[in-house]
């Protein structure tokens, strides 16, 4: 250390890998342990939250790490959900195959959209993603013969089988959700700490400068968007297969806004933030709607308080003030 620079909290010299791994594996261990103690209602809620958190983590890769403010991520979730659901319904393709097809469908949508939308930036990007997501939403209605539109359809039980295990069974469902969650969480962590992650953050911070360091910004953004869609699509496919229902509401604008709120609440550009945001928002809506019909008012007030006191989301602010090593 030279001179008098130790006034501000100086981050440690080497990234504290052991501490970071310990924290994230610890979260996974707690989630595993909760399986044995949670009452039924919270058990199924947490299964749902873990899958939705994968959606949020996917969104975070685009928005939090790469600075791509998408208003249409429902299309990736829906691509995974419908691809997995439809092949189960009409082609008798069961869980593992359906899941992979769902992921591939989301990646394909992202590559197509990205090739167009990533030529724009800022507000234009938001509008183009919003438009595309609406188009996907309308396509679902257009093919109502197969998708049953609004009403949706139930994924046949016979297809909800993974390695001989029944995905409708609460234990199998919880553990499958946890496995997917663990993969997304550790994947996000690895990405955030990788060379690729460093370039994405650089593009988010200062796109022009990244370009002048020789990075092909367009290609990096397309990569980020596709990885983001892969996670969102995996969440969608898993959601359909685990909970057995596929419906158009999952492709609606709400499902593009939810991941944005979850990520903003938990902390954009933090690995654990999306999960924290999903849990809090889920229970905030759940508890307040049980108490009052004006629950959206309460949710709104909480969001305002959050922006006042945690402008970078909960973990983003915690990192800034207390834990600079938090990835």
């Amino acid at each position, binding site marked *: 250390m030279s001179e008098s620079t130790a006034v501000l909290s*100086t981050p*440690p010299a080497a990234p504290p890998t052991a501490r970071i791994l310990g924290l994230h594996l610890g979260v996974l261990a707690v989630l595993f342990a909760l399986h044995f103690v949670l009452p039924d209602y919270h058990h199924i809620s947490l299964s749902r939250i873990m899958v939705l958190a994968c959606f949020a983590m996917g969104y975070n890769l685009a928005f939090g790490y790469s600075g791509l403010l998408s208003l249409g991520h429902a299309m990736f979730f829906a691509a995974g959900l419908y691809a997995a659901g439809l092949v189960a319904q009409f082609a008798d393709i069961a869980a593992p195959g359906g899941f992979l097809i769902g992921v591939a469908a989301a990646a394909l949508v992202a590559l197509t959209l990205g090739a167009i939308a990533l030529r724009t930036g800022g507000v234009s990007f938001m509008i183009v993603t919003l438009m595309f997501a609406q188009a996907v939403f309308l396509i679902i209605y257009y093919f109502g013969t197969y998708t049953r539109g609004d009403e949706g359809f139930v994924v046949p039980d016979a297809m909800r089988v993974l390695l001989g295990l029944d995905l409708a069974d609460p234990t199998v469902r919880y553990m499958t959700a946890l496995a997917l969650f663990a993969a997304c969480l550790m994947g996000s962590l690895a990405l955030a700490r990788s*060379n690729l992650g460093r370039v994405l*953050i*650089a593009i988010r911070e200062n796109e022009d400068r*990244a370009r*002048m360091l020789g990075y*092909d910004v367009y290609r990096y953004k397309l990569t980020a968007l596709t990885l983001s869609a892969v996670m969102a699509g995996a969440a969608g496919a898993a959601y359909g297969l685990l909970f057995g229902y596929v419906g158009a509401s999952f492709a609606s604008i709400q499902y593009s806004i939810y991941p944005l709120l979850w990520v903003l609440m938990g902390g954009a550009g933090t690995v654990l933030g999306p999960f924290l945001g999903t849990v809090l928002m889920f229970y905030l809506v759940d508890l307040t709607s049980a108490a009052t019909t004006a629950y959206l008012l309460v949710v709104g007030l909480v969001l305002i308080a959050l922006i006042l006191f945690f402008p970078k989301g909960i973990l983003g602010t915690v990192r800034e003030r207390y834990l600079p090593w938090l990835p």
Partner: protein
Amino acid sequence: MAAVSGTEMGREPELLLETRGLSRHFGGLTAVDGVDFQLRRGEVRALIGPNGAGKTTFVSLLSGRIRPSAGAIAFEGRDVTRLKAHARVARGIAYTFQITSVFQALSARENVMLAVQRRLTRGLFGPSHASLAAEADSALARVGLAGRADEASGNLSYGHQRLLEVAMGLGMRPRLLILDEPTQGLSDEEVAAFIALIRELSESATVLLIEHNMHVVMGLADRITVLDRGRVLAEGAPEAIRADEAVQRAYLGG
């Protein structure tokens, strides 16, 4: 193919960069107007001229940040006029910004690592964190920022941010380093250290320098090009430029 160095004794210094009839209009305004310009490998060239002479526009055309309205640019004998900015960087043209433009939220080390990383990445696989950090640290040491490697670059003083920009330029190991007003806002001491640094740097790279501080220009440049209203007004050795009447009228306030 591998032309190593054109600066050896007895050899004709070879051309690194050449522009022909390079122009750029912004609406009705002609910022750069038919510039023919040649840069030899190994030299330090200063680009001077009054405000609004088109200096920044000219180097932005060279680096590919903006497209020319007309004319051509050749780098190492190959036409790069249509090449995008990031591809020109890969060929060895590095540009450091006039307005300090480091990644504020990242540490100084990470800023330089980003500069090193692109050069060392081949295909899908990049270099290890340790090797990147080591090379970044050596670049930081060369500009005298070794003790600040872990600090968020946004917390560094202005002068240190400018030095960080140069360290990023070093990390890219460019063949041509374009510096846009690098000493603006630096203290006299910092300027002196900066001159020494650029001199050292010019051993391994050709330097094109936009600079207002005539002390820096006279101390560093092998040749000077004077731009005025988008055109080349004069070009030559520092003493000749200092004596040139047209230059004095346009710029030196003579």
